[in-house]
């Protein structure tokens, strides 16, 4: 973990209620896709956690959905603003175990960390497939960005306005992949684990006090006892979880 001051390079709306911030600053604490940062939002007591969407030396991006006071305020942040962030938090996705054909499954605000993951898997000469689900066509993002990487993408929306109608599982097959990675709402993660025939990893969310292991606020019960989502997670192996 490293505390940094980040400079906002851009903060643009990319879908309905959904924004992307690109920061510049020290990215040395990030080591794996699926890690997160914890952002101070002036006027609010607790920091807000966001998965890192992508990073390269000196630049890092997040994609966030406006759901409450903090994300509302973030949507008004202007280019050039400085923000205090705790970086390189948590244990991210492990790309070693993926086998040749991993499936990446994302729901809504769970889609962003899959972008970096996908690029890393491609760089390792693997053939990832992506399945994403959103509420409606207006909320969808990154489907073209994934396609531009040459990756097959299937989409589902709850109202059927884009792709298959229903949940992301209605749009993809889980029997062809060698491994899966999933990030999204808890109901989706449960359904994905139940439907899967391979091993995989899921990224969990929990309300956080600190984001770096100090408060025990974010505990999940696993096969190996209580674990902190912010430190031992947010990414857990399918087999570790007790649903």
């Amino acid at each position, binding site marked *: 973990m490293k505390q940094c001051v980040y400079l906002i390079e851009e903060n643009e709306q990319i879908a309905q209620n959904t924004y992307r911030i690109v920061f510049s600053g020290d990215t040395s604490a990030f080591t794996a896709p699926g890690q997160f940062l914890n952002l*101070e939002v002036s006027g*609010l*007591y607790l920091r807000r956690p966001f998965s890192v969407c992508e990073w390269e030396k000196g630049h890092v991006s997040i994609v966030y959905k406006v759901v409450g006071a903090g994300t509302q305020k973030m949507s008004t942040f202007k280019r050039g603003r400085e923000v205090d962030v705790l970086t390189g938090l948590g244990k991210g996705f492990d790309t070693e175990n993926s086998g040749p054909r991993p499936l990446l499954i994302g729901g809504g605000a769970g889609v962003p960390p899959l972008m970096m993951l996908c690029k890393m898997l491609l760089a390792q000469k693997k053939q990832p497939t992506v399945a994403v689900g959103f509420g409606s066509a207006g909320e969808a993002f990154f489907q073209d960005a994934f396609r531009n990487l040459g990756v097959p993408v299937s989409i589902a929306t709850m109202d059927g306005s884009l792709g298959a109608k229903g949940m992301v599982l209605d749009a993809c097959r889980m029997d062809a992949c060698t491994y899966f990675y999933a990030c999204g709402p808890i109901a989706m993660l449960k359904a994905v684990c139940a439907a899967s025939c391979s091993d995989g990893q899921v990224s969990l969310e929990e309300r956080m*006090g600190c984001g770096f292991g*100090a408060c*025990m606020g*974010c*505990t999940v*019960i696993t096969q190996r006892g*209580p674990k902190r989502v912010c430190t031992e997670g947010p990414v857990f192996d399918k087999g570790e979880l007790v649903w």
Partner: protein
Amino acid sequence: MVNMAVILCGIAMPNPVIAASGTFGFGEDFARLYDINCLGSFSMKGTTLSAREGNPTPRIAECASGMLNAVGLQNPGIDKVISEELPKIGEFYHRPVMANVSGFSVDEYAEICRRLDGQAQVGWIELNISCPNVHGGGLAFGTSPHSAAQVTRAARRATVKPLIVKLSPNVTDIVEVARACEAEGADGLSLINTLLGMRLDLKTRRPVLRNITGGLSGPAVFPVALRMIYQVYQGVRVPLVGIGGISSAKDVLEMMLAGATAVQVGSANLVNPYACRDIIKALPDAMADYGIKNLNDLIGGAH
């Protein structure tokens, strides 16, 4: 040169700033960030006789200038703390630590104290009789002078280490409870633990915390904590540790003026992992600003 050193129940500390229990784990996560030997001390995560998984999540909620937690004393149990955590602490921290303990019966409190009694690195034992997040434990003992006295008496017999009783603000008359603990041999008192509170989610129309209620902490509680230190200082002779909402060097000075010999910094560590170090670094300048040469001259100065 200013003097920041204080003595708490016979143990010398380089400065009065102690990291509060439950916000500093067992020190390890912070020791990776900075040399925590700069601290006055730190109070370990509240420990019980057996391991506890804590409450279901969500355990954390937010409010203006503060937060609520309902962690519910998640901890590995006293034996693991002694066999695993204390040896680890010895590698990165070289001063006495404060052991924060909690129980579900008077005997449990006494048993934990007995097991800690021989632990060289444990300086003080802090009896948590004020945790609002476990049912039938903690807080139940801290809400009446009678049960607070019982726990203190049993713990007193079980250890020769300095005994600090951590008081709950969720009482009608905190001075009465403080006096009861002092009469049974408490060497010091620390206050306050969190204030019982709750938040509702307007979308779901349900409590944000799965536990329904939680403990309020952070800058929002500072005036309450300060008032209670001020009142308790007038009612007892033992040294006091001021806790609640401290997030700056000035807050430390104010708390000491009200009567605290030392202070604990809790929630501030969660939003700024360097909070304790930053406060300690800022103390000399803050003292100079108010013409304070020796912190000991400040203790109880407002009375």
